[in-house]
């Protein structure tokens, strides 16, 4: 028991690692502030393209969505970070993470938006068009607000996943929270800094996870 506490819950080490981890948390939050809006925007465009009536646009987009859903995010990240330089495109870690996440998240957010738009009754578009709204305006003012409301839990869930995925950035040496915790671990040979990072992730994400579960249950009943 003592060994367990010393290895996982060593307060002294946690206190010493605190400033480093806090810095890492800052980078994590900054990363989220960049990749979540990027992913949402990319997802929305992807969804609109995937629902397009133009076949030449629809099929390649659906194929791309499936491609990026099939490839593990870490593989994509390493390909972008370590592979693209061979093609003459050298990105710093932050840009590499942003690009890999844009590709991966657009596919996932895109699927959710697509389901949301599909869940809005056909009559809504017809009614909007009958009042003289253009297709684009009807989409923005009538369809999308309902679509987003219908899939809000999924959008929030996926955002939780995105925040969790930012931890992958540690693999390409971006100094986000897990990277900072890893650094502290490698200096102290003690797991407590990572546990501290875990506690911070939990503090941020647990309330959201609970909220989504409760919201979905309300929908089901």
């Amino acid at each position, binding site marked *: 028991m003592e060994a367990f506490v010393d290895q996982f819950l060593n307060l002294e080490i946690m206190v010493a690692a605190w400033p480093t981890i806090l810095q890492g948390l800052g980078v994590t939050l900054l990363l989220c502030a960049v990749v979540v809006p990027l992913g949402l925007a990319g997802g929305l465009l992807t969804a609109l393209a995937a629902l397009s009536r133009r076949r030449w646009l629809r099929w390649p987009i659906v194929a791309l969505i499936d*491609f990026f859903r099939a490839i*593990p995010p870490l*593989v*994509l990240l390493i390909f972008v970070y370590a592979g693209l330089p*061979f093609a003459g495109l050298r990105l710093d870690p932050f840009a590499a993470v942003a690009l890999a996440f844009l590709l991966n998240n657009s596919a996932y957010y895109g699927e959710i938006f697509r389901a949301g738009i599909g869940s809005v009754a056909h009559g809504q578009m017809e009614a909007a068009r009958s009042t003289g709204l253009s297709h684009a305006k009807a989409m923005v003012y009538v369809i999308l607000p309902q679509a987003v409301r219908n899939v809000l839990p999924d959008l929030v869930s996926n955002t939780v996943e995105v925040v969790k995925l930012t931890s992958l950035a540690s693999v390409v040496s971006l100094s986000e929270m897990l990277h900072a915790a890893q650094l502290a671990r490698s200096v102290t040979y003690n*797991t407590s800094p990572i546990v501290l990072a875990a506690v911070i992730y939990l503090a941020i994400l647990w309330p959201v*996870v609970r909220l989504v579960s409760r919201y979905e249950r309300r929908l089901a009943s």
Partner: protein
Amino acid sequence: MGNFGDAFLNAEVLTKYAPSILEGVYVTVLLSILIVLSGTALGLALAALRSLAPAAVRIVVVVFADIFRALPPLVLILIAYFGLPSVGVFLSSFLVLFLILTLVLAAFAEEIFWAGITSVPKGQWEAARSTGLRPAQTLVWIVLPQAVRLAIPPLTNRAIAVTKMTALGTVIGVSDILNQATTAQSFSGNASPLLLAAIAYVAIFLPLVILSRWLETRFAWKRV
């Protein structure tokens, strides 16, 4: 273009490292199958427990599922990999990865099955109980068959997401596809192994992604 082809589709490099990547494919596929089987089974057992057990046990199940859904898997993997040996638990990196991802999938599967169980109307329980079936019998014969059907599409999506995380094993030295590829890349100074790895992942997971699309239309939630 010549440079590009040489960097990403170098025939010499590809032939040299294809076998090791194939070994990685074996490890990735084996891990994925083990994780899906044990994670789904554990998740189903936990959801059943949650619907039959007293409140204290239910809370433990919920807390477990919440934690393993809220934490980044890589964080869990690193804690287990670096922490466990110091408290006398020695597991191979393969086992650590298997264990953590099984628990992660189980946490999500529990939530998915539970959502299915709660969406079965109360009248089904009442009808079954009125014919003398016990709670566990009602769960097994009446509620779960309906709940599992609802659970299949989201569970497939989640199983794909979690098994894709086997690539995280690279970080702790599991010799999966990605690990083999990054090793080959650093030895050869050529990006072809990375491209080959990406192709291997797509070959494994694309059929599953397409399957999940089909399941979604087939078992679509009928919202009445």
